[in-house]
């Protein structure tokens, strides 16, 4: 058999695009991402301009935590289909995860201009703009969301949250109240509403809102810590300690409850215990820095 015939056999035996893609899709669906990625990469090499191959390869890589490679594939996919809604959403999130905040915000703006009626895109854009430090733009998107989706608890909450940040407390409280009314199972408006009450010294009034937030989400550490803080201000030390200890039980790696426990002990004159809890809090803080990341005081959970 001549060399040419051998090459022909090899060519015939080589898997084609469809079989590679389908095999990759099958493994991806079965969450076997390690196996899916090379199959999809081969498929993309055969047809570099195939959107689905790039898109799915990016998704498999993202699942494997290979953020930069995923972004590369998705950027290629975006050049093939610039208006693909789901892809734009994924790019916003993945850029943000990789701490490419400016890129995330740029894609978010682009996506919003193409899909101005999409509520989810508004929320993604708000976060992306916050992460990028463009608080004015984030507030403007939140304002538009509240205008376009007046019956959405999320939209009202987002705008209320941003108004609070520029000191417009009265309008913020109004929007947060509306958000609580629209969706009593949504914990964030209850937490931030209570936060404003605590700042104004209305500790007793804040308690039921924090308890509602915690009924909706018992492991919401910032709410439990704020509840403990309000109880501290009311000098209800035992209840404050109970809440902090519950937060520690639910989220033992979180530094914040230990910090508050340190403050409780200090206020009670137990400086040794206060120091121990402080040291533990600082140690956990160094071990889990992302647990305490925030966007203008909005804890990321």
């Amino acid at each position, binding site marked *: 058999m001549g060399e040419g015939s051998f090459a022909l056999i090899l060519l015939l035996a080589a898997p084609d695009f469809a079989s590679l893609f389908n095999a990759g899709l099958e493994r991806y669906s079965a969450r076997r991402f390690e196996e899916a990625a090379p199959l999809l990469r081969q498929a993309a090499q055969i047809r570099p301009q195939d959107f689905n191959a790039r898109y799915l390869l990016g998704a498999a890589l993202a699942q494997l935590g290979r953020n930069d490679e995923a972004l590369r594939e998705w950027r290629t996919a975006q050049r093939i289909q610039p208006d693909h809604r789901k892809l734009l959403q994924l790019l916003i999130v993945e850029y943000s995860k990789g701490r490419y905040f*400016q890129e995330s915000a740029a894609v978010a703006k682009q996506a919003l201009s193409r899909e101005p009626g999409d509520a989810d895109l508004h929320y993604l854009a708000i976060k992306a703009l916050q992460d990028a*430090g463009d608080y004015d733009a984030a507030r403007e998107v939140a304002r538009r969301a509240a205008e376009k989706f007046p019956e959405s608890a999320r939209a009202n909450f987002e705008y209320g949250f941003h108004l609070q940040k520029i000191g417009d407390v009265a309008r913020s409280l109004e929007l947060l109240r509306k958000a609580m009314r629209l969706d009593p199972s949504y914990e964030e408006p209850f937490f931030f509403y209570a936060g404003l009450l605590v700042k104004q010294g209305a500790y007793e009034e804040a308690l039921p809102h924090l308890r509602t937030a915690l009924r909706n989400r018992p492991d919401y550490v910032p709410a439990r810590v704020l509840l403990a803080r309000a109880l501290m201000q009311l000098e209800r030390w035992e209840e404050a300690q109970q809440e902090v200890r519950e937060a520690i039980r639910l989220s033992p790696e979180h530094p914040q409850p230990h910090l508050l426990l340190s403050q409780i002990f200090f206020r009670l004159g137990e400086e040794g215990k206060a120091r121990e809890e402080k040291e533990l809090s600082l140690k956990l803080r160094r071990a889990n820095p992302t647990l305490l990341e925030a966007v203008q*005081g909005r804890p990321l959970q």
Partner: protein
Amino acid sequence: MGSGVCAGDYDNDGHADLYVTYWGPSVLYRNLGNGRFADATAPAAVAGAPQDWSTGCTFLDYDRDGYLDLFVATYQDFNLATTPLPGKGANCEWKGMPVFCGPRGLPYGHAELYHNRGDGSFERVTAQSRIGEAKGFYAFTSIAADLNADGWTDLFVASDSTPSLFFRNNRDGTFSEIGAETGLAFNEHGFEQGGMGVAVGDFDSDGRLDLIKTNFAGDHPNVYRNLGKGVFEDVEGSGEAKPWSR
């Protein structure tokens, strides 16, 4: 590169002297009383170490012996040779722009306390005063005030991207760092902030000294209301602190 300055009459001659902090040795300028100053750093022994990037400083009489002592905080132990160039490493970009790297990822700063012997010289008492026990911070401005109203001067240091520090004067020549325990190390949500400047005053006229700390761009200042006994609450954003809200 000058980073900070503080004024105080360390030699009790009735003229305010100056201490200027630098990356590298800092300088004590003795006021001669005729509009001129003399470099008194060497006899005073307060230059600091060559790699110190000293920032906040403050004169205080921590032991109430009638002579002003000197507290100096440093931002980093800074080495140009090992610090990445702007845009060339982690923490070297801000909002997509290449900037001076850090502070995260660079060696922490430290704090120093110098006791005034009363003869124009100072003794470094960082270890025995327990000021040196505080670790893990990038210090900016420092301020001296009796924050717990016990008649002895305490210290507060605004730190960048790390917990701010409250050194309580223990009235025996030592200090305890109790920023986290007293609510002064972090913001109301427990987050480290980019602390920059600090001022002290009784903003609510309750007879207790409160603190305001400014932070890096995009963050709100903290308004720490003194609740008594040196315990504080950040009330920025509340009705009380409205004048400072943006």
